[in-house]
């Protein structure tokens, strides 16, 4: 008699009711996502098939002209490739700058680790605009960085209002995201495993190459995915550091939507960015399967 009541929790005897609770709990977020994200994306997709009239008008239509025009225009092809290359460059620079910090943080312990982690996260508490202006001050023509380079007897290169400035600014702005992603992915890296490699005769370099790097690949993949997506969609830093002279997808979408008032083209470019995201995600899951396999 008593054992029967212990056999199964009451709720578990009615699978339909637990499923009902799950649906009820998921419903609010599903609705928010549907209204706030999926619907606008559909809108955007629909807009990319409308016809743009001169002077900012939009004609309801169902034409692939925006798409075909875009993919035949060498300016846009170059813009897309450029955006991808610059974003990849920023991602790689961010990875190089963040990896040693993340590795050090992973090995640190106690209050020191907490302090350093807070330090890493703290830039996220200031707006990217403020940080970008900070970089503008640093990298300006007679700024401190240029002065230091000049003092060393070199001709300071232009670091503002060009791609160099954009890469430097975005690399620093994206570093916290990269560091946090790397640390999240470093779970498999046990210091004992490194020690095992050392005692088996691996030099520090080979320990890194054969053991540490492979074990941190999941973190690297995650960080790169996140930073690539953030880099290719970042706008403020690009606009301010590029000074209107660096043309990439984000600025072009803005110009088409706000300046030229060609909403269908802006929508097409936006959809293209979404497609690039999808591709990045596909590459990420592919890489992850390769690592885990």
């Amino acid at each position, binding site marked *: 008699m008593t054992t029967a009541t212990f056999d199964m929790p009451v709720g578990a005897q009615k699978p339909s009711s637990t499923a009902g609770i799950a649906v009820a709990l998921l419903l609010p977020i599903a609705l928010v996502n549907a209204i706030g994200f999926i619907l606008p994306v559909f809108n955007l997709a629909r807009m990319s098939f409308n016809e743009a009239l001169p002077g900012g008008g939009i004609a309801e239509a169902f034409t692939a002209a925006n798409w075909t025009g875009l993919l035949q225009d060498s300016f846009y092809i170059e813009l897309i490739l450029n955006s991808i290359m610059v974003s990849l460059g920023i991602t790689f620079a961010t990875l190089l700058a963040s990896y040693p910090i993340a590795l050090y943080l992973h090995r640190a312990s106690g209050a020191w680790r907490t302090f350093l982690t807070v330090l890493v996260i703290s830039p996220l508490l200031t707006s990217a605009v403020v940080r970008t202006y900070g970089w503008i001050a640093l990298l300006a023509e007679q700024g401190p960085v240029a002065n230091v380079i000049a003092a060393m007897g070199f001709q300071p290169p232009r670091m503002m209002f060009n791609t160099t400035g954009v890469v430097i600014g975005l690399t620093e702005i994206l570093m916290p995201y990269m560091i946090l992603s790397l640390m999240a992915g470093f779970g*498999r890296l*046990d210091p*004992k*495993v490194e*020690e*095992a*490699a*050392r*005692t*088996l*005769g*691996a*030099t*520090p370099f*080979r*320990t890194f190459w*054969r*053991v540490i790097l*492979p*074990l941190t690949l999941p973190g690297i993949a995650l960080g790169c995915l996140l930073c690539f997506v953030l880099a290719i969609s970042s706008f403020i830093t690009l606009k301010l550091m590029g000074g209107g002279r660096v043309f990439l997808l984000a600025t072009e979408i803005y110009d088409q939507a706000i300046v030229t008032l060609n909403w269908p083209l802006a929508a097409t470019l936006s959809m293209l960015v979404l497609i690039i995201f999808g591709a990045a995600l596909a590459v990420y899951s592919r890489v992850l399967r390769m*690592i885990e396999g």
Partner: protein
Amino acid sequence: MMHQTIKRDGVETIGNPHLSLEGINKKYGLVEVISNLNLEVRKGELIALLGPSGCGKTTTLRMIAGLIAPSAGKIAVGGRDVTHIAPHGRDMGLVFQSYALFPHMTVAKNVAFGLEMRGLSRADIANKVAKALAMVQLGHLAERKPRELSGGQQQRVALARALVIEPSILLLDEPLSNLDAKLRDEMRTQIRDIQQELGITTVFVTHDQVEALSMCDRIVVMKGGLIEQVGTPHEIYERPTTPFVASFVGRTNRVKGKRTGDGCIRIGSSMIRSARPAVQDDVMVMVRPHRIHVDWSAASTERQGETQNRMAAVLSRITFVGDVIQYHFDVGGTEFIVEESTKKSQASRRQGDEAVLSWSVEDTLVFGADQ
């Protein structure tokens, strides 16, 4: 104390040590975790570093491996000073408590790692890996990943990985503590067999006295960063030189006593003798539970012989452990535990039964009370 031990069991008895630690000292900040440790290990010897957690045994092992540097002192292998050599230059095989297998490599790749680092040819590596895996009976699992193996199998992979490089010294850091009891017994025998077969000098860190006693040629008992005693399992068990060793290795009864003028020791109203004379007036007497004989029919303790100590006792509790039975006796306010192999006749014993406990003078260990 420590220097005497080393002189007897270390420097004087070993002619040409394979591994020697001289005056090793390790400090973390102001905390000294190892103090002036001296130890010599013969070639082919299996030596245990035995002690409770925090005694410095793992720190010592890690210093031998080169994973941490001693604050002072010298470590030499085969006469070569390796104190300042990085771990990858030391040629030692280390088996970690957590095994520390490379999770992204197959079993075969794990075992091959050390050989690849040594630049061996592919054919040589394949050959040696196959042999090493066969030695630990894991040849059939070569292509598995570590996470697909049981704890015991992972442990054997770690052993094969450490042995395949034919290290000058094998270091084992509590290799059996994560295994269940049955597997632990099997691995004990297997590790000892392999060690004997290869004749490899091995340092074995453990907190388990049974492992140390049953597997090792010699045992180094450590406490608080100091060596308490170095000796063969027999010496450690039968002739412990400190009360810590006596109570840490094997179980023991302990009772306070006073030295009397005629070389005897007074415990309550009884007088007993010990093989070694007491060095202080206040002493601690220890007797192993299974060395005590219980005489249920003896009426008095008067016939105190030259070779036997006798004390009257009252049975206070019986613990039946299966193959062993433990009698808890009250001896003038002190509890004495006596162990016997189980027999049917024991069923009639009751709390409050009176008996005379007797044990050999040889089995009476005596230490200074403040030791």
